[in-house]
């Protein structure tokens, strides 16, 4: 085995260490790199911004679980802050059981920040199982699937829900999700009932939904922590999203360097000794 081949077989824990340093350093020495706004984010922001204050509520469906919190929680907080700062009413629900605790925490925290009143300015509808059944059910009558809010108050006794029957009275519904739930909203709410759907998704899912953006099946989209950072920039309130962007920059560059160096070493070692595949692996 030649030296390049050996180099490729270094203990991968050295690489783990490099990543750890790359993620930590920018937290300690922030660079404050500027963030440019992209169109899907601007579109979603505009759609929220156009909702009249103290009228029909913005619906936010917190459809994510703890495993994607770092990407999606900043989005939830930024959108809630945007809505409450403009006195837009908000109804929050979740189609993921694990979203229950996450939604409740985010909603109560931001509502307290803005001094908003439960049932007048916001309502938490809680969780209902059966994704497509819930989405379709809301098209007939929200009360069919959410007869009461998460704390047992019948929707008929929630003042802000008066006259809100189905998607016709929902100016915009934003789903925040790390799974294909987004598609369920497109297929079962937009398609049959013409509901306006916006999405915040993990970066993993983002590229798959570009066709939906193009056809207007989604009005706008936030993709990953970067999308959250853009939204934070738009509402001028920097938080976890913006704070993470410096680390993101550094790690991306590190990974690109690793790909390039790895390929050079790989092809270099093969040119000289094509049979060296193998060797002693680490870990």
């Amino acid at each position, binding site marked *: 085995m030649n030296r390049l081949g050996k180099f490729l077989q270094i203990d991968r824990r050295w690489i783990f260490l490099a990543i750890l340093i790359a993620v930590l350093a920018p937290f300690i020495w922030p660079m404050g790199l500027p963030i*440019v706004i992209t169109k899907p984010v601007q579109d979603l922001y505009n759609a929220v911004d156009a909702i009249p204050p103290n009228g029909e509520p913005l619906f936010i469906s917190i459809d994510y679980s703890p495993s994607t919190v770092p990407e999606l929680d900043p989005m939830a907080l930024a959108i809630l802050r945007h809505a409450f700062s403009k006195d837009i009413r908000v109804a929050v629900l979740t189609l993921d059981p694990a979203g229950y605790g996450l939604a409740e925490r985010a909603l109560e925290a931001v509502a307290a920040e803005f001094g908003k009143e439960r049932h007048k300015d916001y309502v938490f509808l809680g969780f209902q*199982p059966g994704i497509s059944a819930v989405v379709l059910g809301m098209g007939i009558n929200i009360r069919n699937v959410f007869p009461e809010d998460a704390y047992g108050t019948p929707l008929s006794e929630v003042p802000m829900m008066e006259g809100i029957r189905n998607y016709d009275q929902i100016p915009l519904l934003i789903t925040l999700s790390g799974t294909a739930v987004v598609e369920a909203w497109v297929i079962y709410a937009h398609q049959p009932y013409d509901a306006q759907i916006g999405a915040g998704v993990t970066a993993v899912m983002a590229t798959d939904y570009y066709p939906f953006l193009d056809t207007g099946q989604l009005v706008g989209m936030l993709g990953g922590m970067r999308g959250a950072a853009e939204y934070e920039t738009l509402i001028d309130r920097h938080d976890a999203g913006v704070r993470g962007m410096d680390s993101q*920059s550094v790690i991306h*560059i590190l990974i690109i360097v690793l790909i390039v160096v790895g*390929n050079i070493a790989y092809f270099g070692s093969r040119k000289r000794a094509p049979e060296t595949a193998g060797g002693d692996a680490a870990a």
Partner: protein
Amino acid sequence: MRRHVPLALCFIAGVFMAIQYFIPHPSVQAWYERLLAWLQTLLAFAFLIGTVSLVRLHAHKIGHKVAGRGYSWVLFVGLGLMVGFGFKGRAPGSPFDFMFQNVQVPIEGTMFSLLAFYIASAAFRAFRARTLEATLLLLAATIVMLGRVPVGDLLHRSIPAATDWILNVPNMASKRGIMIGVGLGMMATALKIMLGIERAWMGGTD
């Protein structure tokens, strides 16, 4: 009874749910709403089956003194605590919420972040431009990775623009093609299940 009834129920429920989409008449829609509510209930019950299986699996491990059964006890303690706390109250600040926010959220969140390390290691040791296809893929990936972080804007103004182009043109064209293909696959599977051609859901052979 064992095969024909379930297949018939499957067929009837499937065909009804498929054709109601085209029939707005209330006599049909009322049954649609009813069936929709039933499906929702069934889904909730079906979810709990997973929990029952989990409990059985680990009870078996403890019962048969399998190595590492101590961890099965850990699992049961977690489960027992949550159920016990949960029936007492679930409001923010309750013990139930405390466990969720400080045990479930951090562990599940951290599990997936392990992958950031593995991606870096794979970047060095596995991602190879062996073929023209893989080369194209890696090139596009590099541009997108640069174009979606602030540093890309600083390196060159055209990088974010190139990223947008990749996302909006080649990415969209190919993802649209895949979306159509996968959509056909989804419909074909649904159809085969309804018509009883595909019976894997019944399990077993009797």
